[in-house]
């Protein structure tokens, strides 16, 4: 595995008393464009509330690591590799993404995963989640 780049983005500082340093390890990036990661709760997954934390960085290595501060609780990670840097998730005529993406738990479901498929319990001082880019 390639050595990790370490881009640090700490966003959306939580109100909760307890927060976890969540390391998100991303594998399988092509060396182009930008990668965006959002950590969301169930409401955020539905687009009904902002993300708990997010980070964006230029892709410099196939394997990268990001550290986000996330409140304890159930959350899911969504990743978009904006390969052409246009700020958008490009799709074809049928809506299939033509750029990389990924989720926590790396669900193998047909179609978009549910929050339940991607959700995990954020807890403790530090935690790591590994995402394989599709």
């Amino acid at each position, binding site marked *: 595995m390639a050595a990790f780049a370490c881009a640090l983005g700490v966003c959306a500082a939580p109100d909760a008393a307890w927060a976890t340093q969540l390391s998100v390890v991303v594998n399988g990036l092509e060396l182009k464009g930008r990668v965006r990661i959002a950590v969301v709760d169930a409401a955020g997954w539905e687009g009904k509330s902002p*993300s708990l934390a997010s980070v964006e960085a230029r892709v410099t290595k196939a394997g990268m690591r990001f550290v986000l501060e996330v409140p304890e609780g159930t959350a899911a990670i969504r990743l978009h590799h*904006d390969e052409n840097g246009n700020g958008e998730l490009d799709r074809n005529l049928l809506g*299939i993404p033509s750029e990389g993406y990924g989720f926590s738990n790396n669900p193998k479901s047909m*179609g978009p*995963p549910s929050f339940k498929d991607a959700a995990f319990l954020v807890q403790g001082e530090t935690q790591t989640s590994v995402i394989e880019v599709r």
Partner: protein
Amino acid sequence: MALPRRRFLAGIGLGALSARWGRAEAPNEAERCYRGFRQRVEKAPRLDPWRSMDAAQLPWSRLKVEGKVPKELYGTLFRNGPAGFERGRARYQHWFDGDGLVHGFRLDGHGVRHHARKVATEKWKREAEAGRFLVSGAGSRIPDSVPSRGNDDGNPANISVVPWGEDLLALWEAGSPYALDPQTLKTRRRVTWSENADHLPFSAHPLFEKDGRMWNFGLAQWAGADGKLVLYELHPRRGLQRLELLDLPFPGYMHSFAMTERKLVFYVCPHVFERAEGRLYVDSHRWRPELGGQLLTVDKSDFSKRTWQAAPPGFIFHFADAQDLSGGGVRMRACWSNTPEIMAKEMRAVMCGEATGLGSPPEVVEIEARVGRDVAVRRTGLHGDFPAVDGRSPGGFLAVADDDRLQVLTPRGSNRTLRVPGEVLLEEHRFVARGGQAGDGWLLGTGYDLAARRSILTAFDLSSRETTPVFRATLKGRIPFGFHGWFVPS
């Protein structure tokens, strides 16, 4: 098409992903299939053509020719088919899934030469590097599969091959074509017709106008409420001319289509895709004859001019030809099965050594769709598949391959049977014209000699009374059965 970033961050899901594969956890069907095939194949020469070809390429070799290669057959027969069936002790359980191997048989005054090369798809390259299969197939479960972005992550480019401009296209049906160098068979690139056509399904059976334009479709049973049909019109130099989406009445299976001078014709068979978590694509279909079939006729000049007609329930892989009828109707010939067993079961049984061949071949039928009438299906009594016709004369002779023979239906309605002496299984044969007269020419194709356990190339003269080939060229070894080819004269 693109979505603004804020919508991604706001929680939009990733939409209708096209993954045709379900979860691929235990039980390890891949190893069970590997063992089952190994146990049977040594004593069953009929299974030889489903042995895995693991090499990345076969270098040029000269074939032993008996008989004489006619000058009109000088050129190259390209042929594609699934061939890479195994990695380690994992074996694909469905014929659909093997990595594509493209062959070139070159015929000239010196005889016949052969070479072949695997299509270097993104899938094949990733799996070659990993040393194992990484994604489950349309009908094969692979343990520890990795998440895939969409169909092209599992695209083996293994069904057919057609010339297109300076390239040879290796085609699958659920994803992109791959462009190859016709001389070396090296893979040049994955083809994207346009930004919004990237990764769209593209069938392995495009049809061509005399001016070189290509028509094709892509089947997206998983899209929308009842599935979508993608229609393509392509120009050999100017590229994509038209790209449109049509709604299907139900998400039935389609493998090929037919074309008249004015129309494109599709038969949606009632083998219906029903998405279910964890099921493979092939197993996600249910045979629902009570729905009947649906025949779609689309005007080439205006895709919005289209009609749907109820048709009897059946299963079609291959159309032979089609013609316009006076009054606006169409008549087609196709290879028709009463059930989808070949796709659902037979192509699996043979891969895992549970059978030594496919089951009963389909029957050649004539399908007539007249305006304001029910669609009629007339049986011919002739059985076989991989139809060959002279595209210049729809309704003329038709030949199909059936086990160890080619069955030919003549324009006058009589039948002829062509065979290679000995025990030789025959595959698809392509029609190669001799001159300007319709139906005058050869049938050129491959086969497998069960006694010699070697693959052959052979040609029959359609205009002769002879029922044996004009020549037979034998390879030094065997190659897996293929699906479809294309002859390019020199």
